[in-house]
């Protein structure tokens, strides 16, 4: 919708135009730039670590470490696009995590008399957490939209409030171990395995090709110019290649023999000779992919998304067009709260317990991810995929440096510098292309 950088708008006669390769493919330059940056980071660290960075195992870890921040970053895009900010996401994550931990270890047991292994426990806990997150987010949105308190203040206050509400919820205790089903959302304890991962890859590929095809058909239906068929094919091939390559990599990460032995023992069986299994796609990553998909559709294809971007571009115009910008603010922060709770599921499931400091400083990582991903603090501009790539780039830098043995303080210095540099590059890029 807003990323028209590579689309040539001055003429609509396709045959009368000589197109460059990139123009024919109608690829998004910003997306290419970020993927380029990510590849450079990956290759450099791979060389520095003597090939350890791009092993299936490390890629697997990298993706599961990125999920929690990336999920929240997609919501932060909406917040920043509408010229707001949310400094409370880390604390909100802690509060919702505390609520879910208490629900599954105490409250639900007391209220419904469930035993600890009850199958409904994890789901009711997650539901409770999501409701809590959404309600708190909506309340923030109410303070900002209707009472017109600046988002910076509301969420700065929220940063302190919710961090300590979390503390009181658990009396400052670490709560765990969490329910086993619940832990499946954390990463390594919940993966699809080889077969289902390939199934996912095939379904995703077909869906991607169908999306390309139907977009082309819609354009043709209205008599708009479409890109040449070979270019369409190339984009499709790249998409399918990327999906298959990613799944292949994850499917190459084999479950260590000792873990298999333990699993078989637990079931009272003996590990057969030569038996191997791979982890495949983590459920948490699948969750992130779903969030990315839904949020992208919301951003580009729904009225809500259209109003979010319009309000970010010109709040007065949005208001004069009959958009209820106050209610819109409530919805945006409610979405943000919901996503914080979803991230809390992933984060606490990954740890296998709830701890007091869960999500500390996440607000900064989430904002940085959105901004590195091209979300403009002046509002009106940002993409969901950008924010996710931003989160991935940051996580790669951090874990790459850790693998190389860079001191923790210096890691943070680098990440901070990269944030500033990314924004500078974006500003220069926008000046060059005249794209706002």
């Amino acid at each position, binding site marked *: 919708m807003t990323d028209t950088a590579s689309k040539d*708008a001055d003429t609509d006669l396709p045959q009368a135009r000589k197109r460059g390769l990139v123009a024919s493919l109608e690829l998004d330059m910003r997306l290419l730039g970020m993927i380029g940056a990510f590849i450079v980071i990956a290759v450099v660290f791979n060389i520095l670590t003597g090939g350890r960075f791009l092993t299936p195992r490390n890629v697997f870890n990298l993706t599961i470490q990125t999920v929690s921040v990336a999920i929240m970053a997609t919501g932060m895009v909406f917040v920043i696009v509408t010229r707001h900010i949310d400094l409370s996401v880390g604390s909100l994550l802690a509060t919702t995590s505390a609520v879910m931990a208490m629900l599954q270890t105490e409250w639900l047991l007391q209220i419904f008399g469930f035993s600890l292994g009850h199958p409904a426990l994890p789901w009711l806990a997650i539901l409770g957490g999501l409701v809590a997150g959404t309600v708190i987010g909506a309340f923030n949105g109410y303070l900002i939209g209707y009472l017109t308190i600046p988002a910076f203040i509301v969420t700065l206050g929220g940063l302190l409030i919710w961090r300590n509400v979390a503390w009181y919820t658990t009396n400052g205790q670490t709560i765990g171990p969490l329910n086993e089903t619940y832990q499946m959302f954390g990463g390594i304890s919940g993966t699809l395995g080889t077969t289902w991962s390939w199934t996912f890859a095939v379904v995703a590929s077909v869906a991607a090709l169908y999306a390309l095809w139907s977009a082309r058909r819609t354009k043709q239906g*209205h008599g*708009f110019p479409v890109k040449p068929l070979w270019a369409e094919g190339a984009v499709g091939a790249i998409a399918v290649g990327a999906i298959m390559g990613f799944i292949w990599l994850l499917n190459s990460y084999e479950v260590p023999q000792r873990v298999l032995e333990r699993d078989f023992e637990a079931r009272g069986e003996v590990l057969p000779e030569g038996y191997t299994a791979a982890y495949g796609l983590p459920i948490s990553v699948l969750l992130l992919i779903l969030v990315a998909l839904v949020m992208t559709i919301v951003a580009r294809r729904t009225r809500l998304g*259209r109003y979010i971007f319009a*309000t970010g571009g*010109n709040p007065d115009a949005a208001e*004069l067009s009959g958009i209820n910008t106050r209610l819109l603010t409530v919805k945006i922060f409610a979405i943000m709260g919901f996503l914080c709770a979803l991230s809390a599921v992933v984060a606490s499931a990954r740890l296998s317990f709830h701890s007091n400091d869960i999500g500390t400083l996440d607000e900064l990582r989430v904002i940085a991810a959105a901004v590195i991903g091209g979300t403009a603090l002046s509002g009106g501009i940002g993409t969901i995929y950008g924010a996710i790539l931003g989160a991935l780039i940051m996580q790669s830098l951090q874990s790459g440096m850790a693998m190389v043995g860079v001191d923790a303080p210096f890691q943070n210095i680098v990440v901070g510098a990269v944030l500033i540099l990314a924004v500078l590059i974006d500003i220069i890029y926008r000046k060059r292309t005249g794209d706002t």
Partner: protein
Amino acid sequence: MAETPLVELNDISIAFGGVQAVDHVSVDLYPGEVVGLLGHNGAGKSTLIKCLSGAYRMDSGEIRINGEPAEINNPRDARAYNIETIYQTLALADNLDAASNLFLGRELTTMTGLVDDGAMESETRKVMGRLNPYFQKFSSPVSALSGGQRQSVAIARAVYFNARILIMDEPTAALGPQETRMVADLIQELKKQNLGIFLIDHDVHQVKELCDRAAVMKNGKLVGVVKVDDVTTDDLLGMIIAGKTPEGVAA
């Protein structure tokens, strides 16, 4: 005239802090009529019509549409009365393209409820083809358009949705002679379709050519309403500058 006015603005007042921007002003508008609003900068013209378009809430006064009292508290209410407005500031979201702006708040959707960008662009091409045939920048954000192109997007938005009452706040301020001509022709055409139009314009010649009546404001107060055929451009200028209505022409 015996028929009921399309719009009656009765005794409208609104103040910002200490500034009485509009001070007990009454104007009406009949179907098929163009009423010009004249006045120096800061006279209160935009503020007056913003009470009708729902952008501001008046402090006191009454609005009647088709003779019935109308409650207009926000732009959505105004749209429900088929009131469309071209704002002086254009009120476009710069980061969105022409079609998204044209349909902002009233998007066309597919059967699944998702916004139908294809259909909206196609409609936008049609209406823009009539208003500004040279316009081709359909997929650029409107920030990439010239002032005149932006203005034509704002005009297209107001005329697309079958308005009954059209408010145009300096619609030709940024337009070239040819595009201004096109807007003038458009106003004539809309008039034939029985719309009522409020036209704010600083060009008294244009007002004399396009309008049936002219209302002149000065410092928030109504100087007078006259039939443009009864007065000369000098009379109008006199009303704007000196704030006096010539003898025996009040409409």
